[in-house]
């Protein structure tokens, strides 16, 4: 899922302070799991911003609403009234939702979150990065652990010299991806694979190749 983190109130206030009717708009799928941008969080954020407006002595009406996903047209219908009412939207979706919404409506749509990564819920309250969507999955060769997402240098052929007692040289709280890969290959009795040279990667399927698009002729209406 996509993980996000709410921006500081001060920064949000800078975005919305010139508007009269602001809608704080939640996205109740990915960013609701990390409890940053769901409809409940949008509601809480709206009250915080109302307090901020009072403190600042600014006349402003702030409402909240939300839908299941801000990255698909069909979900917007039920919130159409609220969206039309507002003269600006503070979206607590990921960057995809914010942009998708801005493309649909001729009014300012501001980001309420910093979109941080594609991750998993390691345990309650712990969200961890697992994939960078490079467009060409190499997990089959690395024991199911991605060095692109999990090695600070995205090394494809093994650990750097800074791997110490299982952690990465940048931070003791970060596990060394290659230690994990080696442990996993050993567990699977596949250590001989470690000596296969990883081919030079084709990054054209990654960000380097420009915006990516998938078209499925078979599912189009």
């Amino acid at each position: 899922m996509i993980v996000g983190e709410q921006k500081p109130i001060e920064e949000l206030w800078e975005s919305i302070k010139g508007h009269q009717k602001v809608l704080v708009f939640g996205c109740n799928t990915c960013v609701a799991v990390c409890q940053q941008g769901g409809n409940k969080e949008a509601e809480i954020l709206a009250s915080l911003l109302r307090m901020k407006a009072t403190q600042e002595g600014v006349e402003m009406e702030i409402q909240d609403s939300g839908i299941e996903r801000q990255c698909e047209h069909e979900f917007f219908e039920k919130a159409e009234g609220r969206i039309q009412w507002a003269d600006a939207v503070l979206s607590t979706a990921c960057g995809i939702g914010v942009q998708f919404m801005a493309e649909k409506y001729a009014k300012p749509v501001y980001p309420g979150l910093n979109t941080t990564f594609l991750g998993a819920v390691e345990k309650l309250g712990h969200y961890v990065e697992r994939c960078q969507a490079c467009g060409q999955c190499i997990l089959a060769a690395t024991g199911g652990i991605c060095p692109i997402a999990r090695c600070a240098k995205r090394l494809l052929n093994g650990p750097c010299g800074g791997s110490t007692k299982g952690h990465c040289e940048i931070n003791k709280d970060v596990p060394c991806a290659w230690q994990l890969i080696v442990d996993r290959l050993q567990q699977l009795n596949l250590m001989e694979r470690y000596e296969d040279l990883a081919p030079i990667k084709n990054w054209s399927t990654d960000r380097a190749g420009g915006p990516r698009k998938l078209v499925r002729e078979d599912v189009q209406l």
Partner: protein
Amino acid sequence: MSAKTPSRLEKILRAGHLAVTSECGPPRGSDPKEIVHKAEMIKNHVDAINITDNQTSVCRLCSLASCIHLKQLGLEPVLQMVTRDRNRIALQSDILGAASWDIHNILCLSGDHQSFGDSPQGQNVHDLDSLQLLQTVRKMRDEGKFLGGDDIKRPPAMFVGAAANPFADPFEIRVPRLAKKVKAGAEFIQTQCIYNLEKFELWMRQLVDRGLHEQVYILAGLTPMKSAGMARYMKNRVPGMDVPDAVVKRLADTPKDKQAEEGIKICIESIQRLKEVKGVAGFHIMAIEWEEKVPGIVEAAGLYPRPSV
């Protein structure tokens, strides 16, 4: 094996001499005098001089320009090149740039993470990793081709090296990792600073068992300690460094004004011991901002005069 390049370092190693290399860090400014001065101090006592490439991710005068300054003095530089800061276009371009100045040695590295340096907010590139850079240089040299497949007019003639850290984790892949670097095309290896001699010797035994010493020249890396404080810092703060308690204690038990001398003594004793280790083909002496000590170490370790080839 006959030499594949005009590299003096390669000729010395192939002739069976114990090679001696050292390294100099470029200045944080555009005045070349500093790097020239450092090189002048050590030039008669080493076979080649590595020039670091923005080491510890602190921005400095570039390795390539520094190598050219050395070349103009008639010295033998080893161009260090990290994959952190350049993509494959820039790497190949800089390799050709170096070759145009007849720089005949290259050391392929991934580079310290940028969070350690003066630009922690910068991007890191890592389009290739260090093993893929090794493959790239070998392809350019041996096949005369760019990674993209096109022919190179006057391919680079470089002796190709890599680093190895016998002390990093996971230990069980230390030898496989070296084998992988050899497979990728490494012809010489300069190791991380060695303080734990037993562990280094164990690593050497394991690689000799696999016959890797016949496929690659291993230059043992040494850095003399300046003080007990430096030893503690290296032990506790530098990732991938293995400094045994005995080394720290020996320095700490020495009066402060004699610690530097003791550090040099440890370094010389280490070289003398490692000279006898099967598979050790030479020494890489990294006297960090202490280049003036290199000649004395080389002489005391019985590695002077340097052979002429």
